[in-house]
């Protein structure tokens, strides 16, 4: 006789045994007591929340001749046969492995016949979302003309995959995640029954790791028991769940509070060296910080969900750390959690996150301003800061979609400095004659042009793109200011580009360079100074009537010229 898993031994046999779903079980009991059961039910909810158990109890209760208050007696022949899975009238189907039309048609045919042993025939279809489309259609037919004395119970963890037509034919019950406190109570009860002892902190660790699923909780408890001698220890629970002790979490958060990156990194390495699951570590940490935050607002809530096992360090941290800091910590951790899903080498991710966490806002600003230690580095540092700002601006543009052009704000100082170096006198004539068609043509030959360059020049030009073109001129934007400067000062490069375009298009070409970040501003300046009324939709020349307040015209003109959506903000 092999070992019986706890969750099977302790599978609920009465509605009242199902933990954390009281509203639903009460409704089901009422239906049975008043003989007002529906012919089709849909049980949805996360795994391990009692859906299949509820279905089997329902099958018993509706058929049990000794039911009391809607509960099955679990003693009579019918009840016992159903519990043992031996009653022909209660049919359990795993949609995952029987998902075809044939299987469901078979059900449809057989459902017509009256139950043989019990009063009601019960079909329990588990993982119902796995049915094929054909099978769903067949099932729908049955649900539309329900045979008498037949009840369908459909269970699923993924209700969004169940067709609406099916859902609308059923009475739906949403099973909830079970609270950690409820899981804790149930485990304590089972252990008491088994006459086993436990460390409450161990059950708390398991309850939290189970994430609202009773089956997960009991499965973890099983594993912990198999490693222990009739006593559930915190060490074993931490071991099995890969969780960290609260003390260690508190120490880590303390290093954040102290802005102490070195200590934080040392602690992190200690944690990793113990072989803790990295994902789990981040999850635990997020939860811990959330609790710190919650404790500031609703201490009694945290006390309850933590089963009153709160230590002094937790309380001290919660009192000491401002809410904004905690929100910031959660943000960084959430980000890290996303990143971790894609790597087998998590250390660097965690180390970066750890250092970031230990930089308070003030510390960050301070370290940025102390950026220039030596005179030699000064220029480089200034330049790289400049570029960083440009990049940030660029990133924002990419994220925000349609370009919003802020009317020259002081913060874009760096961009302005560079934009001064742009030769507007050379750009305006190109823009005056620019058309989308020309730009398209130029984009076509662009790769060929790049192929004419040597490796270094090609490397520089690869981060550029033509943004406006006329018959004889092109404006080329650079993603990186540092490259723009380099290219703009490279007369050799410009000459090769112009020669190349001449050979490719047959026209003499003027090439003008702009940094990408300055481009919207230049474009806006040009449009506002040379805007045309709406009727000139296919503008390929500037009329010189300045109408800066006529937004739609400006936008349409911009589209005609550059082929993208530009939103020009007024000052």
């Amino acid at each position, binding site marked *: 006789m092999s070992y019986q898993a706890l969750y099977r031994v302790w599978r609920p046999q009465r509605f009242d045994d199902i933990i954390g779903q009281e509203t639903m079980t009460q409704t089901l009991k009422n239906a049975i007591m008043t003989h007002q059961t529906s012919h089709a039910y849909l049980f949805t909810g996360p795994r391990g929340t009692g859906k299949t158990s509820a279905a089997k109890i329902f099958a018993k209760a509706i058929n049990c001749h000794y039911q009391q208050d809607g509960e099955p007696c679990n003693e009579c022949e019918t009840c016992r046969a159903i519990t043992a899975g031996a009653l022909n009238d209660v049919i359990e189907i795993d949609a995952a492995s029987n*998902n075809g039309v044939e299987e469901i048609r078979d059900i449809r045919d057989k459902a017509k016949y009256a139950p043989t042993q019990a009063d009601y025939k019960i079909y329990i279809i588990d993982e119902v979302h796995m049915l094929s489309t054909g099978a769903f259609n067949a099932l729908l037919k049955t649900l539309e003309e329900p045979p008498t004395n037949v009840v369908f119970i459909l269970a699923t963890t993924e209700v969004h995959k169940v067709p609406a037509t099916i859902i609308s034919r059923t009475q739906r019950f949403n099973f909830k995640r079970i609270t950690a406190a409820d899981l804790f109570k149930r485990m304590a009860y089972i252990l008491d029954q088994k006459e086993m002892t436990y460390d409450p902190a161990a059950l708390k660790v398991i309850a939290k790791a189970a994430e609202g699923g009773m089956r997960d909780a009991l499965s973890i408890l099983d594993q912990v028991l198999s490693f222990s001698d009739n006593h559930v220890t915190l060490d074993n629970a931490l071991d099995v769940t890969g969780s960290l002790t609260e003390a260690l979490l508190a120490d880590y958060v303390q290093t954040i509070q102290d802005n102490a990156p070195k200590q934080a*990194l040392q602690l992190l390495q200690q944690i990793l060296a113990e072989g803790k699951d990295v994902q789990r570590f981040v999850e635990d940490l997020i939860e811990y910080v959330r609790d710190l935050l919650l404790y500031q607002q609703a201490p009694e809530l945290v006390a309850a969900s933590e089963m009153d096992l709160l230590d002094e360090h937790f309380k001290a941290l919660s009192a000491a750390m401002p809410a904004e800091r905690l929100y910031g910590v959660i943000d960084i951790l959430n980000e890290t959690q996303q990143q971790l899903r*894609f790597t087998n080498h998590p250390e660097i991710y965690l180390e970066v996150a750890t250092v970031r966490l230990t930089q308070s806002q003030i510390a960050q600003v301070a370290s940025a301003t102390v950026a220039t230690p030596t005179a030699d580095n000064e220029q480089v540092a200034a330049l790289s800061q400049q570029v960083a700002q440009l990049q940030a601006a660029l990133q924002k543009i990419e994220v925000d979609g349609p370009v919003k052009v802020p009317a020259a704000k002081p913060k874009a100082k760096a961009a302005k400095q560079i934009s001064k170096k742009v030769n507007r006198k050379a750009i305006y004539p190109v823009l005056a004659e620019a058309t989308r068609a020309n730009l398209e043509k130029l984009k076509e030959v662009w790769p060929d042009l790049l192929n004419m360059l040597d490796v270094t020049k090609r*490397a520089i030009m690869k981060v550029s793109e033509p943004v406006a073109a006329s018959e004889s001129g092109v404006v080329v934007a650079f993603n990186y200011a*540092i490259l723009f400067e380099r290219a703009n000062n490279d007369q050799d490069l410009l000459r090769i580009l112009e020669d190349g375009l001449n050979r490719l298009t047959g026209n003499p070409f003027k090439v003008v360079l702009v940094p990408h970040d300055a481009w919207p501003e230049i474009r806006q300046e040009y449009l506002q100074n040379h805007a045309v009324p709406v009727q000139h939709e296919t503008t390929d020349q500037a009329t010189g009537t300045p109408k800066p307040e006529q937004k739609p015209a400006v936008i349409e003109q911009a589209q005609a010229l550059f082929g993208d959506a530009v939103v020009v903000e007024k000052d």
Partner: protein
Amino acid sequence: MTNLTIEQLQPKLIMQFAQIIARGQMAHGYLLAGAQGLGKRQLAHWIALRLFCQQVTTDGQPCQTCPECQRILTHNHPDVIEIKPEGKSIKIADIRYLKQEVAKSGMESSQRLFIIEDADRLTASAANSLLKFLEEPAQNVYAILCTSNKNQILPTILSRLQVIDLVPLVPQIVQQQFETAGILPQQAQLLAHLTSDLTVAQALLADDWLMQVSTKLAAWAQKVEQHDLEAFVQIQTQILPLLGSRQQQKIFLTLVGLWYQDLLSCRYQLETGLCFGAYENQLIQASTTLTTTQLLMQAEYAIQAQQILEQNISCQNVLESLTLKLIA
């Protein structure tokens, strides 16, 4: 080959499973999860041996010599069924076969064990077909699934198994293992951060690949530190020729990540050894010229590059754009 034995790799789990089996508390299903080289398959085989061995030693170890042990060791035991992906995935047909085999119960003994390797490669239908089987297992039938991608296992499967996370080996131990196998200390140091599998490590050393790549990486990093556009050019001329396969490209980006890990170690004077010990001076130098904000930003770029490469963007694009961000 001097790979570590499962007793050396996972001593704690071996002890725990010895206890579990001795007490007759084997659960019907386990998932062994952990990176390559941690001993998942060896542990599964050890459990098989321990379950079937007729002469378990006094300290609870399988004898490895009795007929049962011998048949398991040669993969000829009719009651130990092993499934692994043929090609890319484990298909529903494989699970049908498995169910049939398990149904022929009591062929030789009263118990049966099936082992599924790379369980994350079960197709959706195969995984779902396995579900009910795991839910209502037959008496004395045990399942052991192995995976190095636990995140990709269906939650419904996960919740029907006891999940055992294999403890990652600390780099220091792996490094010792590599050194014992004759790998030079400095190479072993770096390799230990890339893999805990000796075979994989040796493959990386073949044709001096890892050393060449490290040299190029350090030279590139030097140019990056100097904000020299030459670094950009090096991607195409020096580095890409060494990155022929997707795997090599990924490893290179992992190495870039490790480089930044070393920079952080230098900056905060952590005692753990550097991955790139040979370049300690360069690393220390670089770590002092960057501000914390710059160092963090650069490390973030290196991390992002790893993810961008996963999105099927060409390696050249990824590395070149990374270089530009770092130079800027």
